[in-house]
């Protein structure tokens, strides 16, 4: 095992988008139980440094693998299609129209209940898009389509972040 191994190898998982979240979390805990600096608290500075490197590596991999969007982006990159969102902003017209409609709905939402309802709608749409991403990567092996789907999902994720900030503001 090397620090430079890819995340899937590190976690002993097949290189695919579909992941059993519970198994992934259990793997993460098992790995941290082995490499965390606290496990080497009574050893020297060298062991501490090494443990720190591994613990950081394992945490970074877990962060990427547990989020379906980041996991998808990472798989695209492993398969030779980097996302490069800043250079690939073109999106289908229908998708952009929906984005605009959502943003207007968020602006018009009068209270937390209305924002929550909008979030539920967006969450359903996001789940559908993620299922399509899984299909593109695991079934069709169409990495280019998957990368395009990841870029679209990045819009949705950003919008859900805005929704969360709005909910926090409304709670105050």
């Amino acid at each position, binding site marked *: 095992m090397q620090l430079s191994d890819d995340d899937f190898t590190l976690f002993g998982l097949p290189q695919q988008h579909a992941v059993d979240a519970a198994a992934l979390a259990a793997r993460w805990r098992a790995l941290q139980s082995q490499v965390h600096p606290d*496990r080497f*608290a*009574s050893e*020297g500075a060298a062991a501490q440094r090494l443990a720190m490197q591994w613990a950081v590596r394992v945490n970074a991999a877990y962060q990427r693998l547990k989020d379906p969007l980041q996991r998808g982006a990472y798989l695209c990159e492993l398969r030779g299609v980097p996302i490069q969102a800043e250079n690939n902003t073109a999106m289908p017209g229908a998708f952009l129209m929906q984005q605009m409609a959502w943003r207007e709905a968020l602006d018009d939402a009068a209270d937390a209940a209305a924002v929550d309802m909008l979030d539920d709608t967006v969450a359903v749409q996001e789940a559908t898009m993620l299922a399509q991403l899984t299909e593109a990567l695991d079934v069709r092996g169409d990495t280019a389509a998957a990368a395009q789907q990841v870029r679209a999902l990045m819009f949705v994720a950003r919008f859900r972040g805005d929704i969360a900030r709005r909910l*926090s503001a409304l709670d105050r």
Partner: protein
Amino acid sequence: MALLQISEPGQTPDPHARRIAVGIDLGTTHSLVAAVRHGVAECLPDAEGRAILPSVVRYLDDNRRQIGFDARAAQADDPENAIASVKRFMGRRLADIADHGRLPYRFVDQPGMVALDTRAGIKTPVEVSAEILATLRYRAEDTFNDDLFGVVITVPAYFDDAQRQATKDAAQLAGLNVLRLINEPTAAAVAYGLDNASEGLYAVYDLGGGTFDISLLRLQKGVFEVVATGGDAALGGDDFDQALADWALAQAHRAADTAHDKRAVLVAARAAKEALTTADNAVLAAMLSGEPLAVPVSRAQFDTITRPLVERTLLAVRQVLRDAKLKRDDVAGVVMVGGSTRMPAVQAAVGALFGRPPLTNLNPDEVVAVGAAIQANALAGNARDGELLLLDVVPLSLGLETMGGLVERVIERNTTIPVAKAQDFTTFKDGQTAMAIHVLQGERELVADNRSLARFELRGIPPMVAGAARIRVTFQVDADGLLSVAAREQGSGVEASVVVKPSYGLADEQIASMLKDGFASAEADMVARALRESRVEAERMTLATRAALVADGNLLDDAETLAIEALLADLGRIAAGDDHAAIDTAVEQLAEGTEDFAARRMNRGIQQALTGRKLADI
């Protein structure tokens, strides 16, 4: 007849090899020290059998001081010199302390951290805290009649980098070896989780004297994973006292202007608040400027007066649930920590929010210290392997200032530590050869609304057109939650870095000079202490290496084993001498000589984790 002793499996039978490690809850209103004794974690009482040490330090004449109950009793009589709730000032500037005008101290507005002008001179919050820590250290050393190997100190989860660093500085000043800072709610969860053998998602609601924390933790097979944390580093029981005091003064059309009166009305408010925990009515009674003040207050009135404070805690609870993308019904139990959670209105409000009564079966004053003791015992290597692991998070986002006074977040809050993250930035102007790195902590978009942690410059960037340089800035947060930042121009390899402590923490020289100023000891003691510390480290490394050889010696060939044995023999010989520098060098050589061995052992551990099997089965 003397009974034979049987050591627990996995524990070392040699009594000298058992390292004494304690947990300290350094609280706003009171502090405690706990240790694992005979397999049970418990608070260590003072000579009079009291576990609690009031966090009050009173400076007297002739460099004498009172710490604890005596100091607390003298607060109203000697308000400027009896310092209470100093934790609220740790790592803070005067401007950060919203209510400093209502407090009886003579504040000194120093850059970095506020200080207090006392009879014994200007004292920083770090020095005051060190007095409390040293008192608990002596208590523990008296209890065990031995030196301490190390200590775990708890801090509010919501403490920022400056406050954590200040706490570490105070420990160093008190002569303590800090094994780890851990978050108070995590410590409480450890105490509860191990006590009740619970699994699942728990919320820890921790309302102390001066700080409020809410944490969500997932407990599974001895691993305590912090899922999300939030709170308010300037909200606690003291604010309830203040609110009640202000209300009572307004009722009586009175004012508390002198230091004595300010303290007296707060002491009276605190007593009334505590009485209302069990009684329906109480009287806030104090003597202000020679005139008695007596204001009756009912629990219902108290609840109304303090409702906005309780509401602020609930706001943070809702936010943390949103952050974690969890609903209240996902929570298996709510743990109450901190003396302020004794207030019936607080328990009722938390119960209503989660839809279930909170757990209160452990003493809310002691539970944090007990959890810290359990972790200290594990970190000292006394506990059985694989029993306990804490996976904590970054409580506040960390980022950098970019053009236009905006913050670019590099590490988001609630990211599991340890963590390292790199982000690339570029130059703004043609021919720009230097870049200012301004490190910030907080959730807001604008630099001005966040806490500034450090500034440093990367110089010597080769002149290029704007946007051509690629400067990689790496943030690293270690397992204590402390941050270091490094910047490197990728083309030329020019580097600069900083361990974040300059603006709030104390410089090492300052600590050295405080130690010299009679805090701990004379010069001879310093040398003796250095030697003792070096020997402890040598012993620690020797034991760890021997244990590793027993467990994983088959990863080495004969020549490699011999080389390590030779280093061990050298260290043993040198450690018997009196030259602490030579011992340190030998320890370092052993560390270097076993680095490759450590890497192979790490690899074996990971393989084991992946296969889920014990080595013996492979």
